[in-house]
């Protein structure tokens, strides 16, 4: 028993130590963001003097060339539809993949998995040209369409894997009573699938919010830039203004942090979804 207690104590000690090491960089940007630059220029861990203020946050929010207020608003404007559209379309297709017996479905599903692994660079030039021809370059409509298509394969994959695990009996009996496939899907399947739907919403939102590459190539007018695009612009002209840069970083992390704090269970289920059958 004694030996067990010692092992447990050592385990806690190592766990706490590692967690502190892991948190340290985040602590660093928080400490830098709430203090004037001259206080942290030789290390944020020097606490004398320590004068916390919100000045860096206000400066980042109202930045003269790349205000984060506008960036945050723009990011939300893109992220919300880019989350809902693919989930509506993908849940329909995922149900089809899970339940229908049509020829070609297996090959189509292989295509979906292949598209899931694609690097964004593989579509970059053609979508740039396509958006230019459609007059959608530098518009959120264009970016939302690409995000919707980009998120589709993995949401289909994830939801299809979830739908397969549902018991088929209810659907069968509803069909015998004359319900169409669509009625079965919208009245029976969707209501019992909300945990999986929330998981896909959470993950897709996180990815769209964090996206940088697609926004970088499709949106370029200063007023339209998203939050992630504005952060590299806040570096400052002659020296790096760490106060503003770290404050902006923290503001852009608020949305993902909130989601992680309150919907952690669904977020992790979504990630682990890769492993389930």
């Amino acid at each position: 028993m004694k030996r067990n207690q010692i092992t447990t104590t050592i385990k806690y000690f190592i766990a706490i130590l590692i967690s502190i090491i892991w948190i340290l960089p985040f602590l660093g940007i928080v400490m830098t963001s709430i203090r004037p630059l001259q206080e942290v220029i030789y290390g944020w861990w020097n606490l004398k003097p320590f004068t916390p203020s919100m000045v860096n946050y206000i400066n980042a929010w109202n930045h003269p060339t790349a205000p984060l207020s506008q960036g945050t608003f723009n990011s939300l404007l893109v992220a919300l539809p880019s989350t809902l559209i693919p989930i509506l379309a993908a849940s329909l297709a995922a149900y089809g993949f899970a339940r229908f017996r049509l020829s070609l479905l297996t090959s189509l599903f292989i295509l979906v998995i292949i598209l899931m692994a694609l690097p964004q660079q593989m579509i970059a030039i053609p979508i740039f040209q396509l958006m230019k021809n459609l007059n959608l370059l530098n518009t959120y409509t264009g970016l939302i369409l690409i995000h919707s298509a980009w998120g589709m394969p993995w949401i289909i994959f994830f939801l299809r894997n979830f739908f397969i695990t549902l018991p088929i009996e209810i659907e069968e009996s509803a069909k015998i009573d004359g319900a169409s496939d669509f009625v079965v899907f919208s009245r029976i399947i969707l209501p019992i699938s909300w945990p999986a739907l929330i998981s896909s919403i959470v993950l897709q939102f996180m990815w769209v919010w964090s996206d940088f590459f697609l926004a970088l190539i499709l949106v370029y007018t200063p007023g339209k830039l998203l939050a992630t695009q504005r952060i590299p612009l806040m570096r400052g002209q002659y020296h790096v203004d760490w106060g503003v840069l770290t404050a902006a970083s923290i503001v852009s992390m608020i949305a993902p942090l909130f989601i992680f704090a309150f919907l952690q269970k669904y977020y992790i289920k979504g990630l682990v979804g890769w492993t389930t059958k």
Partner: protein
Amino acid sequence: MGLFHHRKRRKSLKTILHQLAFFLPALILMIIFLLYPVLNTLLMSFVSEDHQFVFLDNYKKVLSSKDVINQKGFTQGFPMGALPHNFLWILIHLPFTTFLGLVLAVLFKDLKYNFIFKSSIFLGMVTPMVIGGVILRFIYEKEVGIINAILELLGFQAFTWTAYPETALLSLIFGSVWLWTGFSMIIYSSGLGNIPKEYYEAAALDGATPFVIFFRITIPLLKQMTVVVITMTILWELKIFDLVYVATMGGPGGASNVMALQMYFYAFRQFNFQNASVIATLLMLLTLFVTIPLIKSSLGEER
């Protein structure tokens, strides 16, 4: 359950059309914005600037470019070129994150309040990679960076790690270990939760040491998790872009350049769409190769 399958009548045309409609919205979006662009990029990689079919000429050009593979670099140090840099990323980052994630998952498993430990490791996964890049610059910086402060305490000279060719790439790779370890930890944690307690109790009764239990029971039972962790991690390492863009922009002098960034330079800085398509296609081939086990396992379970 089987009964209903036997009773199923042949489908009417109306049913088939009705069922096809389920796929329509998703298919339309994927064909226009994914499939067509992929085929277009593939085609572009095989033609010259004036639309002549040149087959592999562009590939030869790109693979002999110093930006992509720099043979001098292998003997004289960085830059070694974008492609070897990605491989180096895999070589270092993959074993570190995979193993560290597993060890942490095992360590945290039976501790009380372990969600605090798990969350602090997982924070890096929640961080957008653009911000990850800012933080890496920050911790490696000569004056404000904490890594240099610790090194100075130990008597070493402080310098900005990301600003020198010798250290730029390696500091980003190790920084990305810090950001990504949460992924393998969380996947392994959920895998550990599925292993029945009896296995461990039986092994303990037989007098197996924790070391033996770890290698003989835990690791073999997590095989499926390991496939997923390795696949997703390699995909992440091949596609890495934002982090490098923000932290070093591939510099200094290409010393931390990677494939995805090189594609961006070719396409949107030099407007050389042929070379850019070649890089993109090479990247896609690598990702496809990595995904094969995942495709096999998701089709295998269907039968």
